[in-house]
């Protein structure tokens, strides 16, 4: 059998495992070097999700309860592509986030900010045949966390993507342009260099904005692409 492997991320494409400014990495990063192994069918294959698991309003976090959630209504649109700009079609995207007051609907979140009975903060969708997706939600609030005494996470939305193979899996966070908290955030700053950091900051996009209803943001995502083969190029 033959197999076209996925490209390995270049150094600095992802955050390092040990990043002292983000204190929780101290005891949770391996000290031994990662062992480099070849890709086999185990790594390049991956789970495929059927559309039947999605309900029509799963992508709209403002319509999951009887009333509307509080906060600034936003639309997020984007495309999921690989490193060759080929669309990743029909792939599951899941998001989760805090409410407009900066509180997660989660038992571990003890931040003294109100829960919103009209907001659970979870959504899911699949990309279409051009890799496009769309979510409707509200802008999450910033919230304090225990990294240091003055630490507040910048507003962010968690993204989880499966992609076509086990090794294309991506978990990331989408941030908002111009947020003054970004420059203080060790999780964001763990991404090496401004150029790479910009890839997790959404762009305000008036073509996504829905007039008199919701502000639009664009957030494109890039997953690992395949190695070039002599035959395909």
């Amino acid at each position: 059998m033959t197999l076209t492997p996925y490209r390995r991320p270049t150094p600095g494409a992802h955050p390092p495992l040990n990043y002292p400014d983000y204190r929780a990495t101290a005891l949770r990063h391996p000290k031994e070097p990662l062992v480099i192994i070849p890709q086999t069918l185990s790594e390049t294959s991956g789970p495929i999700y059927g559309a039947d698991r999605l309900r029509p309003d799963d992508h709209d976090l403002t319509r999951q309860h009887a009333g509307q959630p509080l906060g600034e209504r936003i639309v997020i649109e984007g495309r999921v592509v690989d490193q060759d700009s080929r669309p990743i079609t029909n792939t599951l995207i899941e998001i989760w986030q805090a409410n407009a007051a900066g509180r997660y609907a989660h038992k571990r979140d003890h931040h003294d900010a109100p829960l919103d009975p009209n907001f659970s903060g979870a959504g899911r969708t699949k990309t279409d045949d051009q890799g496009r997706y769309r979510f409707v939600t509200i802008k999450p609030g910033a919230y304090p966390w225990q990294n240091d005494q003055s630490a507040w996470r910048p507003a962010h939305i968690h993204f989880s993507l499966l992609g076509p193979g086990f090794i294309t899996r991506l978990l990331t966070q989408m941030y908002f342009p111009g947020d003054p908290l970004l420059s203080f955030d060790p999780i964001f700053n763990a991404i090496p260099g401004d150029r790479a950091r910009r890839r997790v900051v959404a762009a305000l996009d008036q073509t996504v904005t829905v007039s008199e209803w919701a502000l639009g943001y664009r957030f494109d995502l890039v997953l690992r692409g395949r190695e070039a083969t002599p035959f395909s190029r």
Partner: protein
Amino acid sequence: MTPDSAELTPFQTVGPFFEVALPAPGRHRIDRGTAPTVRIEGTVRDGAGHPVDDALIETWQADQEGRYDRTDWDGYGWMPTDGDGCFALDTVLPGQVPLPDREGTLQAPHLLVGVLARGILTRLVTRIYFEGQPSNATDPVLLLVPEARRSTLIARRLGETQFRFDIVLQGVNETVFFDV
């Protein structure tokens, strides 16, 4: 090497609140009409030996014949660790998966594992092998691991169908993680 036309989106930690979207217990039973044949359980520990009670463990495996490409097969498991840092998976023992080579080399039965958690900025990837499988001795991936550390990748047999696979993020008996 071809220049990328689009650049990778960087990883970020899954954080402590992923259960908002991916609620416990997750998917911890994998079968194909037949009953699971093995149970794998383990604890995730950090560099101080403390259980990691907010991790998300993901597994991916072939079916009993070592195949991934069946439409009726879904070998994907995912499990948030519980308050004691523990996870458990009831599944079928995967078959041997071929290597992409001309010789038809087979890998020993294994699962891929992704470890995500607060404090883990980029997903950690490892493999679970099974104690007592003769093919472990010739598995081409295991042979790339320094001999002294191979045991961290082999689930210990506790009983006829029960295996234990602890994940140590750092320190003594640190689990081998892969760059793949």
